[in-house]
């Protein structure tokens, strides 16, 4: 168990629930979803409780994340895009806090499961498609027909555009999932080397220093990746939402 890099991704039932043959148990994954939401929600709620005109440090963090996401969305989708701000902000905070919580030893990483990231990606694409058709009707399909393309090439370009549109939720979800999964496996493997080598006596302990340094460096890298992937997820969400707002290229 100590050296098994996959073990950390196992889902275990904490409170078994089964409805209509479906296994809807409250699992460790569910627990960490609750923890993620509770941490992020409580942080944002409590740090802004004093509504300081001059913000405290913690209030600054909440305000900075607010303005960070707001600027991101405004740059990508314009002021009309601000109607989606709660969605983008929720996604960003959820992914960021889930990633960061996963960095604690023995904690489960919610975003290391493809079904979770895929569900979030489908939420984005569903919003894009639903809002696009609701707002623009069939003109939304103009998204697939760029202006200024010679008539002969239109079928080819449309095919490419459709494929690229359909691959968006896959790339969006796999990027986040694969980054978290691979990062955690790498960390675990290198940390495992430390323990394995140390069990070979004095020489092993000396040799274990190298993977230990590697583990420390990787931990730093993983914190970066945790933030970066949340940022990438939010930025791409903003860009896709821009398509729903302005379907003509």
């Amino acid at each position, binding site marked *: 168990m100590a050296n098994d890099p*996959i073990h950390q*991704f196992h889902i275990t039932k904490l409170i078994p629930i089964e409805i209509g043959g479906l296994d809807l148990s409250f699992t460790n*994954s569910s627990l960490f979803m609750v923890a993620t939401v509770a941490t992020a*929600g409580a942080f944002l709620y409590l740090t802004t409780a004093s509504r300081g005109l001059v913000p405290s440090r913690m209030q600054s963090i909440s305000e900075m994340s607010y303005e960070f996401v707001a600027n991101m969305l405004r740059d990508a989708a314009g002021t009309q895009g601000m109607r989606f701000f709660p969605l983008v902000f929720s996604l960003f905070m959820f992914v960021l806090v889930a990633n960061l919580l996963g960095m604690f030893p023995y904690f489960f990483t919610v975003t290391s499961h493809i*079904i*979770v990231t895929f569900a979030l990606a489908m939420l984005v694409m569903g919003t894009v498609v639903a809002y696009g058709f609701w707002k623009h009707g069939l003109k939304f399909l103009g998204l697939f027909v760029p202006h200024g393309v010679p008539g002969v090439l239109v079928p080819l370009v449309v095919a490419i555009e459709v494929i690229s549109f359909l691959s968006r939720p896959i790339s969006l979800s796999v990027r986040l999932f694969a980054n978290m999964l691979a990062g955690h496996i790498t960390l675990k493997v290198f940390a495992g080397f430390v323990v394995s080598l140390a069990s070979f006596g004095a020489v092993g302990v000396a040799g274990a220093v190298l993977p230990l340094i590697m583990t420390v460096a990787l931990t730093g890298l993983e914190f970066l990746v945790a933030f970066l992937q949340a940022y990438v997820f939010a930025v791409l969400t903003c860009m896709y939402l821009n398509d729903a707002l302005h379907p003509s290229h």
Partner: protein
Amino acid sequence: MFVAPAFAAEESETNASGTHTETGVAHDAGGGAFPPFDSSTYASQLLWLAITFGLFYLFLKKVVLPRISGILEVRSDRIAQDLDQAARMKEEADAAVAAYEQELADAKSRANTIGQEARDSAKAKADEERRQAEEALGEKLSEAEARIASIKDAAMSDVGKIAEDTASAIVRQLVGSDADKTALTVAVKAARG
């Protein structure tokens, strides 16, 4: 890597039997698949994601985001208001400076006027006094000249008489008889020119 008691028990059993592998397949409680691809857990994950993320979304949308945007708005309003007030105060200060300078300029010009007036009146007075003095002197001069002229006239008229007397006396001495008075007077007059 949250470890439930039941699972931990099973894990230790597996370790004890020495079938430890790096793939983790041997430990899989739920059917041997790589955990993220184990579809038996999907329903539960989706349900709990929907519940937690949905509540999170609603909480942020209804409570947190309006609050933060309120804080930011109040702050930017306050900053704008403070800047306005600063601009207004600066204007007031500028106006006060302008008023002060205006007053200073007025006072200066008034002082100049007063000085000028004083100088002018002093000069006028001096001029007047000099004029009066000159007039008085002129009067005295002309009086003196008149007196000199009268004295001279008197003297001159006496000169004719003396000349006549002297001439008649001389004529008497030379001729031994009185000369014609009228001829003498004519002669003296002719001699005086």
